[in-house]
């Protein structure tokens, strides 16, 4: 099968590129578009480091064949800061010491963004559920859960 042209709206910008059949959304973001925030931790949907928002919903981008989402809207961590200003989730992770090696951080923040988009006032249990597909090996999760709750509080008017 031949490669095909795929159109995506990535971080509010229209992007067009060629993709061979079966190319993952993760590979497309990284190799075709040069967006490196989403990481390859397992390439089999078990770690969550590649989480991005696809039409507003969190997905593990390693599991999405990019030709099946032609025309979709994608948000990555590169698109979260507004005019160079950190958003609430980023600021809460930064100030709350919720990062150590940083490899899971992009996936964690995108899972958190998806949660806060649909539920601005989450409980601790809601946060735990939202990041239950994201593996972190350094922090023990506590500071990450705290940071997401803090981000929700910062975002509330």
């Amino acid at each position: 099968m031949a490669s095909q042209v795929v159109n995506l709206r990535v971080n509010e910008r229209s992007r067009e590129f060629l993709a061979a059949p079966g190319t993952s959304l993760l590979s497309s973001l990284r190799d075709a578009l040069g967006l490196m925030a989403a990481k390859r931790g397992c390439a089999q949907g078990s770690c969550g480091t590649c989480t991005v928002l696809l039409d507003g919903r969190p997905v593990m981008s390693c599991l999405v064949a990019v030709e099946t989402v032609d025309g979709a809207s994608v948000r990555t961590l590169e698109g979260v800061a507004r005019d160079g200003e950190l958003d609430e989730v980023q600021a809460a992770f930064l100030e709350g010491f919720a990062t150590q090696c940083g490899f899971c951080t992009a996936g964690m923040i995108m899972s958190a963004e998806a949660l806060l988009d649909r539920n601005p006032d989450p409980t601790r249990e809601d946060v735990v559920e939202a990041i239950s597909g994201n593996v972190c090996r350094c922090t023990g999760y506590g500071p990450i859960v705290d940071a997401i709750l803090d981000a929700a509080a910062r975002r509330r008017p």
Partner: protein
Amino acid sequence: MAKLRGRGYASVNYPTGMNLGGDPSQALIHATTTGTFVVSLSSVDLGQGLKTVVAQCAAETLGLPMENILVDTADTDTGPHCMGTFASRGTHRVGNAVIMAAAEAREVMLAVAAEELEVDAGDLETDGTGYIQVKGAEEKRVHITDLALAAHFTHGRTISGRGIFLKEKNDPVPETGEMDPDSCQAHACTVAVVEVDDETGVVEVLEMHNAYEIGRALNPAMVAQQVEGGAWMGMSHALFESTEPYYPTRDHGPGDFNEYLMPGPADIPMYHNAILERPAGNGPFGAKGIGEMTANAPIPAIANAIFDACGVRLDTMPFTPERVLRGLDELRGNHH
């Protein structure tokens, strides 16, 4: 059928560095024209925060703000030698090397400032905000940016320094095991509170109380990161982890995170942590290495808590529900 609660204790020590082959690390530091100090290393940050902590060591020694420090690592063409990041050696070895390099650079900085201000170098001090000033006559001062420019373009001096820390080679005596392998020891005592479900065998860790003695907490927030992240890893080792669940046979080895189990964010206990400081004479500002040891005490503390809860002594890791249930069966006299 009941949930049985128990408490277990463990106290441990842990060596900083393991260096029988000789264990050096180096640092170089130099000032740019505008007074930023670049710390050149080949040391690796695995996420524990080495880049931050060595910048603190440089800033403290130079008497300058953190904003004046850049850490450039790890390129073997430009960074001097480092043995690597392992054995809880990074903060201790690299921290000491950076302090030595920064002390040498500070001496040059004060000497150039003495020429610039036409005073004796011994009468100068740093104010921590970027000025070098005369003790007791603070209006007589020069900012590091102006000083570095003057060093380059007027005095022809490099404000720079070299540092190395070496733990010397030591061969164990084969007959007795006499040896000097480490630099200092950090200490911890963990108390774990668990709940054992005597129907399913599932162990839940409810609380972990950790008391640590670490020499000096160079950055208390990053100490907390190590203590809590390590406690989680210890709990994970204790209850879940193995690449060979039927060791010593190699069957059923997990291949991904769906099969290799670890506690998730729903499984974390309440942590209560306390830090004591007994500075080590050979540590950077007294610090000992604690990156590794934080996973150690939780494992036996949990084993001992399980015994306290239900009378099952688990002498084989990990403490899976299957092992707990087999132990309970044995206590009840149900041999299979």
